[in-house]
């Protein structure tokens, strides 16, 4: 059984790890490398169009020749309409409109269909993404399938959990501020196309996009809406120990040159330390689920109870979004 790290290595042209960024309990190790494949449309070509029914999200790909990728568990929140999220990733063929009818409603007692304008976008928090991993959840056409999980997710954090309104969380003034502050602490670096995300030095997910343009378009949804949101909730519940990375002792009288060397090797050791952790997480199942315009969508599960989507062009993965 291959480790999840082996899956990362399957990305051709190599992926390097950039310098770690860490704030309190969350660390992000940037993944840098060349753009993947050559057939994925730029993210600005993908437009969320509307919800055609409860549980159906429609996207347009305005680029004629190349397919576009809808990120895993992409979430759209609008006003006066039922907010929605994708149950998995998606592929929209070049120049086509596609409706994903396995999407979930995430605002239980709100009626109305979303339009393409004046929306807020994010990616579902990892706790809820994990709820969508079983095939019975992600493939089922049932708009209300995530409601019990959302109610559960909202419990105990001082947010109204009587209704499955995920926006109660994102619209809360203090949480909104905390999420913005959180996103502000991390920044994309040159050539970054992905990241490994850790809570208290334990990997909780990795994300790889086809190009730096995709990463720049979606990183905030991931860092703020997905991982940041989950960490804030866990902190509110008291289930994550408050901590921050311990900085290295600097020997007295170290020169600036010695300090620079010490800090560089400290950052390198933090990055290297994640590899054995990833090697312990094994791929349980890796299977192709669909194919569109030269892109193959695969569903992955891990022995740690996690999983997600990997999209490949031929044998080469060009997109991955996996939570542990």
């Amino acid at each position, binding site marked *: 059984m291959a480790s999840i790290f082996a899956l990362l290595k399957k990305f051709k042209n190599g992926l390097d790890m950039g310098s770690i960024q*860490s704030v309190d309990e969350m660390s992000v190790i940037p993944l840098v490398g060349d753009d993947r494949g050559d057939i994925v449309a730029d993210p600005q070509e993908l437009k969320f169009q509307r919800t055609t029914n409860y549980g159906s999200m429609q996207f347009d790909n305005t680029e004629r020749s190349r397919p576009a990728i809808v990120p895993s568990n992409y979430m759209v929140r609008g006003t006066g309409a039922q907010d929605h999220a994708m149950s998995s990733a998606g592929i929209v063929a070049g120049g086509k409109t596609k409706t994903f009818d396995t999407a979930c409603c995430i605002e239980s007692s709100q009626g109305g269909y979303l339009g393409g304008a004046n929306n807020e976008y994010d990616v579902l928090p990892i706790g809820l993404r994990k709820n969508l991993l079983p095939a019975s959840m992600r493939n089922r056409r049932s708009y209300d399938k995530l409601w019990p999980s959302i109610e559960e997710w909202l419990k105990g954090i001082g947010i109204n959990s009587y209704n499955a309104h995920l926006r109660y969380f994102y619209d809360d003034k203090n949480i909104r501020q905390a999420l913005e502050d959180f996103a502000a602490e991390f*920044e994309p670096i040159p050539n970054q196309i992905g990241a490994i995300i850790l809570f208290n030095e334990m990997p909780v997910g990795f994300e790889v996009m086809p190009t730096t343009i995709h990463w720049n378009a979606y990183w905030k949804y991931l860092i703020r809406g997905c991982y940041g949101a989950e960490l804030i909730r866990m902190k509110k519940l008291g289930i994550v120990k408050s901590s921050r990375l311990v*900085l290295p002792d600097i020997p*007295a009288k170290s020169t*600036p040159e010695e300090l*620079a060397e010490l800090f560089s090797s400290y*950052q390198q050791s933090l990055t290297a330390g994640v590899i054995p952790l990833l090697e312990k997480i094994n791929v349980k199942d890796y299977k192709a689920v669909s194919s569109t315009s030269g892109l193959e969508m695969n569903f992955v599960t891990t022995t740690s109870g996690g999983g997600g989507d990997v999209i490949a062009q031929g044998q080469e993965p060009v997109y991955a979004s996996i939570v542990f």
Partner: protein
Amino acid sequence: MAEKGLQLDSGILQFAPKGAFYETQDEQFKQIYRMWEDLFLYDRTLFCLTTLLGGTGFSKGSMSHMLLSNPQSVEDGALIPQGLAIDYERNVIIHNLKRERTPRALKNLLMLTGGEGMKKVNNARTRKIILEFIFNRDHEALDNLAVNYKGKLKRLVRHALGRQTLSRIVDHGDEKLFNKWIGRYHPNALPVILYLFDRPVPANTVMAYYKKIEQVLSLKEAAVKDDIKAFEKYMKGLPYLTVMGYRNTYKVTIDKADVLEGSKMTDRQSLQMQTAAKRSGAKVKVNYNNQSIYDLWKIYYHNLMQSDTTDLPKIEKAIDEKHAKAAKIDIGPVTIVIDASESMSGSDKRPLHPFLTSLSILSVLDNIVDVIYVGGKPIDVNGNQIAVPGGATDLWRGLTEAVMTDAKKIIIISDGYENSVKGMFEHAYKHFKNSGFDFELIHINPVMSADASKGTTRQLVEDVKPLPVSAPEFLETELIFNKMIENRELVKQLLVNKYQKLIGGQ
């Protein structure tokens, strides 16, 4: 407000409602508004006098609004410190309005009518200030003002006079009321009032004082008739926006390019309109030598981003000249670290503002030993590498490099986000200080931050209070704010002296 909890920094004078990379303008405004209130309650005189220091028009307008919303007690003489006139608040407000560029000054007055999200205020003081500011000027200046800002003046005059008084003056020719409110400042201003409210000027009125108004009236007539020849004749020398207004309202069939070339633009407008002019095929000559250093950097980077390199050598030359002529602050030899990470690229409403401010600050500091950029993406311009904000920071590297230069003063210009392992900057700083490296660290933060734990900007090191500087001309102000709480009376005396120097004695 208890003095103990008072948090102040000069950011309260430098606010512009434009948002930042991570925050909306509403969040920032609330934070700043709280600080205005705190200072107002702490010491109204200090609050008023600080507006004499360098700051943004918006901040000063908002602070004046707060002063005018709360009556100034005239019974308690003790409230007026020695050296100030009894109506010193009015003097300060008028002085500040006169120092602003006209559009901003009018916007500040419009705050009293409910503009820019403010509450309406109308009292004896506001009435006098509005009318004095508009009409207490010579004929030519009043003529220009009326033609350039007709809509704004109309709102202000209506607000100050009230509908009834206004109607008595413009519809019934009530001379007594006119003299009471307007004639006291400008006895010949009646044609201006009539022009503002689109009332016909009586046939026997002498218009010789108001040539521009006369020209606009002729332009309007030409526009109504779609007489292009007459329109072209009368638009010459009139403000671009006025001409465009008549062109669009009456659908005059004249090319936009002709309007751009024929009408008159301020130096700033011509800079702002450069792109639109190019699109329309018109030739608009920009005088780069008359721009501020900030505006020059702004147009330089704007052109760079548009891959328009035509004027870059000219702009570079103008920047060099401005830099050489700028009044410098000498704090001794200094090494500067500039944070060029992604977040220094600012908000959508004010692109690149933090980074452009950093570059502009370089022109007001003397004795710069070295400049170290941390982060950033290089762009090749005619063989030179130009830094553009991008990527993460690793700010500790900048500090370490600066310490290596043996600098005694290190200025770091950063928004305060490290983007590495949080705390590494402070860890390095403490080590250097504890190991006997003799340097003073000054943190200049060009980005307002509502989530700052103290003050208006984010802090990098516990014992180094950041100086919020949103524009290079505000550096002087910092000293005063740094001492405001610990030495209130000294600062008040400094400000009273400044008042006497700028406005005069009692």
